[in-house]
């Protein structure tokens, strides 16, 4: 058996990079959309639906650009609806079930804080369309970070029950946070090309922000050096992704020619 690996071209790497970013946002957006009609209060129902919409919007523009970079005349919807779970490259963190409101907020805060630093870098990428997109998404990510941070504080430093739920949420998701900083040959190639970001450069900033907020919320910060789960970027997922995709893709696959309007 040959172990020779194919050398990745810049175009292939860029496509993969855009799809990874898009997959994270699509799957998270889908999880958030599950709150629609189930939010704890009206304002939060609206807020989570808005954040879902932003994430799906970010994914849509990233997929569209990925399809353009690929140059094979695929529509963004083909990428979304006709790939199976091993072909999805999202982080495991975003595919986990929505859990209670505390869990949704904990995930949103950790992911938004990461995205904030990542997109500050991407907004300087050496590609006008991509950096413009990142700059635009960054504006919205700031609102997501502001929103989720405030809920972490309110619930963490709230009643005994809300405190316990926030603590459980962070303890439960912690093993999935290491993957945020996963990098492989795709990242390495694009960092050299000025298109990708070396996430290790802002890892300390992310840790500091997370630590500050959790401490203010009286939540015990779990161990950053504990065992961390990986695999999402290679298409190895939890069992939850398959169920999500089945629901999301069912209509399009059953009626491939269906259109809105």
């Amino acid at each position, binding site marked *: 058996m040959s172990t020779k690996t194919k050398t990745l071209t810049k175009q292939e790497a860029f496509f993969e990079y855009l799809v990874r970013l898009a997959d994270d946002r699509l799957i998270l957006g889908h999880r958030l959309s599950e709150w629609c009609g189930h939010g704890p209060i009206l304002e939060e129902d609206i*807020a989570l639906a*808005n954040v879902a919409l932003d994430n799906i919007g970010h994914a*849509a*523009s990233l997929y569209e650009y990925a399809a353009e970079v690929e140059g094979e005349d695929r529509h963004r919807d083909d990428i979304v609806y006709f790939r199976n779970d091993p072909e999805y490259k999202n982080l495991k963190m975003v595919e986990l079930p929505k859990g209670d409101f505390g869990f949704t907020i904990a995930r949103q805060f950790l992911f938004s804080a990461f995205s904030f630093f990542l997109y*500050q870098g991407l907004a300087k990428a050496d590609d006008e*369309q991509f950096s413009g997109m990142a*700059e*635009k998404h*960054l504006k*919205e990510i700031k609102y997501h970070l502001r929103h989720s941070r405030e809920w972490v504080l309110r619930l963490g430093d709230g009643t005994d029950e809300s405190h316990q739920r926030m603590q459980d949420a962070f303890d439960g998701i912690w093993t999935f946070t290491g993957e945020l900083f996963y990098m492989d040959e795709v990242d390495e190639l694009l960092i050299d090309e000025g298109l990708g970001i070396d996430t290790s450069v802002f890892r300390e900033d992310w840790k500091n922000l997370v630590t500050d907020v959790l401490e203010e919320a009286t939540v015990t910060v779990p161990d950053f050096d504990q065992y961390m789960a990986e695999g999402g970027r290679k298409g190895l997922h939890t069992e939850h992704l398959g169920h999500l995709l089945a629901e999301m893709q069912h209509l399009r696959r059953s009626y491939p020619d269906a259109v809105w309007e």
Partner: protein
Amino acid sequence: MSTTTTTYSKKEIWRWLQEVTDPEIPVLNVVEMGIARDVTIDEEKIIIKITPTYSGCPAMSAIEKEIKVKLAEKGVENFEVKKDFSETWTTDWMTEEAKAKLKDYGIAPPGKTTADDDFLKSLKSTKVIPCPYCESLDTELQSEFGSTACKAQYYCHDCDEPFEHFKCI
């Protein structure tokens, strides 16, 4: 014989674009909003560049469609509406008149944007937004997210009215 693109002037196209309003904020048109960015006319076609306000804004596809309908109505045949991300939409592009119209409509208009660097520090504070009805500063943020992606929900403690604020981005 069909008309050629060069029979149209840029000024004319811009005037027609002003007739296309934002479906969610009908007092504003797509030019005042800063959504329509550029018009170019060459022999083959007219290209209208638009830039989205919010990534997930459902009004964007409606706006794109309305621009197409408007130009078709005016008899323009060869045109393309192109989405462009190279410039990032900001509320700073809204004209002063547009902001005044928003206020009259009951939406507190956006202020001037500030630099990104201070964002992390600014997390610990909230901006005071004056009530569009009674100008009171005794208002309270109820939610960062309102009826549309671009608006936040506030409450005025003086006139006891809830109101929306067009977020500054």
